[in-house]
């Protein structure tokens, strides 16, 4: 971490200005080698300075240089940002010059990594910054911002405080067994408290799934018999809204046909059972392939034909989709009705937009997207956090089971402690002294 890193901080090619950022102890020294203007060594911290970038004697660009001196900076190191006129060639040239003069090209996320390693931000915040950078929709951005503010940390800390109080009570009973005037925590006291903690953790987990929706988007599959109009429905979705051009590799293992933004959420149309394929191939695709698609989707739109009876194949499909994520869309409302269906369905056609608008509303309703936005946004949104949260819940469940099996309190406490530690890992905290402090803050014991 003794070297100075640099990278282009704005996206290349678009916008009138692009920024090259440096962080490290030699940031100012290196920029000075290629810059003519105000003496950067002498300027105050957090100032913007006018000057020019030169490659030896050749003028490269007219620039504004922001100087932010350690420690009150994002990484806590010296940071310099060069604002140049946009354009790939100029920006790349500046970057090259910096590299020639002793900078190292930053790895992805390295500025944030330094901020974390230098104690500027905690782990959850670091992860949130990463999320923010990758956020594609408004909701995802809000979620990331919220976590950066430490909302999730506060929530987890609240639950951990409850756990540590239980632990302290158990410990004080163990360390001062003859003090009958201290509340001796018994099975019957412990069970409701553990259940309460469990349900609070489960709430966060449920919300976290929403967090995942916000961050990774909602996967929608369109399934149905060949020729029923799946392809035209997809095109209608994509045509109407400006499709998000994105590389979401790693967020889903399904092939994404295209994405739109709906109510601030990213909707990914995932591999919809080969609707782009030729007719011959489509006919070979059986229920099995559809089932796979259905499993991986958050919402499944089953397309039926208004002008035909429901086939056995379609009945099978319908039953294989759980109602909570199933939307039935009956296409071809412009043709005479031959279908008869007891379930709720949305009627539409490829001519007007009535059907597709209803479909969008139905998606919002099914996933309660309108409520997610308004609730507080302390969701966990990455796999590491969700995994630890699940482990914390499992530990509480173990403790409850052990109580039920009549295990001694000392053994029961092991799982309670584990839960406390897993939650601590989420927010990157160490714990041990906290327990001893709580014991003496809350209980009256001694010789």
């Amino acid at each position: 971490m003794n070297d100075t890193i640099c990278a282009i901080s704005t996206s290349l090619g678009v916008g009138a200005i692009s920024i090259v950022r440096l962080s490290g102890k030699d940031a100012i020294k290196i920029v000075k080698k290629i810059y003519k203007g105000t003496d950067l060594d002498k300027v105050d911290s957090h100032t913007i300075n006018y000057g020019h970038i030169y490659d030896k004697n050749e003028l490269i660009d007219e620039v504004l240089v922001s100087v932010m001196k350690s420690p009150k900076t994002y990484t806590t190191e010296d940071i310099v940002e060069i604002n140049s006129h946009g354009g790939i060639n100029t920006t790349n040239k500046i970057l090259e010059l910096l590299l020639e003069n002793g900078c190292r090209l930053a790895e992805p996320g390295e500025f944030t990594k330094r901020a974390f390693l230098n104690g500027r931000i905690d782990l959850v915040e670091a992860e949130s910054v990463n999320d923010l950078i990758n956020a594609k929709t408004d909701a995802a951005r809000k979620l990331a911002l919220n976590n950066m503010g430490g909302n999730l940390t506060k929530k987890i800390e609240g639950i951990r405080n409850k756990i540590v109080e239980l632990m302290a009570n158990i410990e004080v009973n163990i360390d001062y067994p003859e003090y009958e005037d201290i509340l001796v925590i018994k099975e019957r006291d412990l069970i409701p408290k553990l259940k309460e903690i469990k349900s609070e953790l489960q709430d966060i987990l449920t919300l976290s799934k929403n967090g995942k929706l916000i961050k990774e988007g909602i996967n929608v599959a369109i399934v149905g018999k060949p020729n029923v109009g799946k392809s035209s429905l997809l095109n209608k979705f994509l045509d109407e809204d400006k499709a998000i051009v994105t590389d979401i590799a790693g967020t889903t293992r399904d092939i994404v046909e295209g994405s739109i933004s709906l109510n601030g959420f990213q909707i990914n149309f995932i591999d919809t059972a080969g609707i782009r394929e030729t007719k011959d191939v489509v006919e070979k695709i059986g229920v099995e392939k559809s089932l796979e698609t259905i499993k991986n989707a958050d919402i499944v739109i089953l397309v039926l034909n208004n002008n035909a009876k429901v086939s056995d194949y379609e009945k099978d499909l319908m039953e294989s989709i759980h109602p909570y994520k199933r939307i039935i869309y009956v296409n071809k409302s412009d043709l005479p009705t031959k279908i008869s269906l007891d379930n709720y369905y949305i009627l539409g056609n490829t001519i007007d937009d009535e059907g597709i608008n209803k479909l969008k509303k139905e998606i919002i309703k099914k996933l309660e997207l309108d409520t997610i936005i308004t609730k507080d946004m302390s969701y966990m949104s990455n796999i590491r956090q969700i995994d630890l949260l699940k482990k914390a819940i499992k530990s509480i469940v173990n403790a409850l089971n052990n109580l039920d099996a009549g295990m001694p309190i000392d053994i029961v406490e092991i799982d309670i402690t584990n839960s406390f530690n897993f939650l601590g890992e989420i927010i990157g905290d160490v714990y041990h002294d906290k327990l001893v402090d709580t014991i003496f803050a809350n209980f009256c014991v001694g010789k």
Partner: protein
Amino acid sequence: MYDVIVVGGGHAGCEGANIAAKMGFKTLLLTMNKNNIADMPCNPSIGGTSKGIIVREIDALGGLMGIVADLSHFQIKMLNNSKGPAVRSLRAQADKIVYPKKMLEFLNKNKNLTIKEGLVEDLIIEDNKVKGVILSNKEKILSKTVILTTGTYLKANILRGSENVESGPHGEGRSNHLSDNLKKYGLEIIRLKTGTPPRIKYDSIDFSKMHEELGSDTFLTFSHDIKPQYKINEQQKCYLLYTNDLTHKIIQNNLKKSAMYGGFVTGVGPRYCPSIEDKVVRFSDKERHQLFLEPESIYYDEWYLQGFSTSMPKDVQEKMVHSLVGLENAVITKYAYAIEYDAINPLQIKPSLENKIITNLYTAGQINGTSGYEEAACQGLMAGINAALKLQNKEPFILKRNEAYTGVLIDDLVTKGVTDPYRMLTSRAEFRLLLRHDNADIRLREYGYKLGIITEAQMNKLREKLDNINKLLSDVKNTKLKITKEVASVFEDNDFDIPTKSLSFEELLKRTNITFNFLNHFINLDYSDEVKEQVEIELKYQGYIKKAKKEAEKLQKIEEKQIPDDIDYQKIKNIASEARQKLDLVRPKTMAQASRISGVNPSDMAILAVYLKKEYGKND
């Protein structure tokens, strides 16, 4: 010229002197008063939660505290029996006359050990190396190593209200210059405080208004080597009583008169052991506080009023005591007092208990910032062993956190330092499921044997026990219980679920409620109780024990990541300044120790790891 001089004859000093002499070194124990060897100036008990396990560890390593307590107590009990195997711990009410007498008998039997009266006021130091001690009469005594176990005697002051007397416990003399001299040699001196409750005359107590506290109805010992020496129904009783409204009112009204609240105390008192005025102030919503009356000895008639430690003036103490039900007419034989004393900052000592600044100087017990007889004794033992190892040019003996409470205690001291006198608690041991009362010998005797402080006979006894444990483990694995009508009815009688198919005894013992006692209905397994106990614990808590062992192994890997002694923390650029200061002060030996320092955050650890890798090419 001695090999080892031990300064102070308290619990740390006795163990240190005894073990160094046992390891073959010519040892001198210096005490201010031979009659005060192994004195118990405060509570009349040995052991207690987690402390009882420390006594077992001392015994497993050839120390004396366990066996002396077994020979001198008039009541013993197992605490936390129902709360789980890891937290069970013994406590004995030791006779304050008999305990020191028996201890002295053991010490006198040790032919390498000399006991002499004398007050040490200075050390002989050359090139930061200790060469001996200087007594108050200017006598110089040379030795290769020195162990300081000065207890509360360094510049001790006794406080009662505004009364402040320069005195050691019970009016004993104090050491006036030793701590100043230590300061001169570069040691940081801290000021600590502790206290003791009043003693009450036996025949002035009305026990009829109090609740009896009895000893155990089974035979128990601290020591692994002797049979119980007492008769169960001849154990002495203790008594439980409570404070009341009146007591609290007296305390509230006189608060400013107490040494603590009147601002007369400069030392920091122990959090876990608050005075009664502290309890009343801090927990003002509590209607009453629990107190115990415990006999100090069967040879005199003073009783110890546990829970009533105070620094109030004598007249207020009279009122306070007389407000208690059953003590309306009590005669106070000794008034409670607070005592302040000098100690050294334990961050200046190594895990071997050797001083970082002065070589060959060791410290143990209250001078290191701890409190309690047991905490002192285990440090004394370790200091004695390590002084001897140093003289043998061997590596120090350092117990790990997953091996012994003793290891936890010393690691806490030298890594975290102290703000108030340190008392051991079960909650300080993250591997307490491994650090049990029942397995102290299995954990530590092998070490003792290799150090030459555990005899071949003692070791053979352990080997036989281990063999039997393995035999019994395979016996229960290979024996199946067929579920006949008779068998089913036994389960039914005990309100246990009847197994649906025949099960091995091993499978049965894994059930929470099934014990060897119950299995006696079906099979006669001829093994000792302690062997059965081991097997039962091992089977019942197998999953958790395995997990703890795995965690310990994980920790071991970080423990093995050494930090070079010559590391310059000033050179690590991005580390937080608080972490840098702490690291520089503690100078941890391993990454694991570094991670336990308070104020060193995970991000500091990451930076340290990166730095080590870059500078020293290790720490993967």
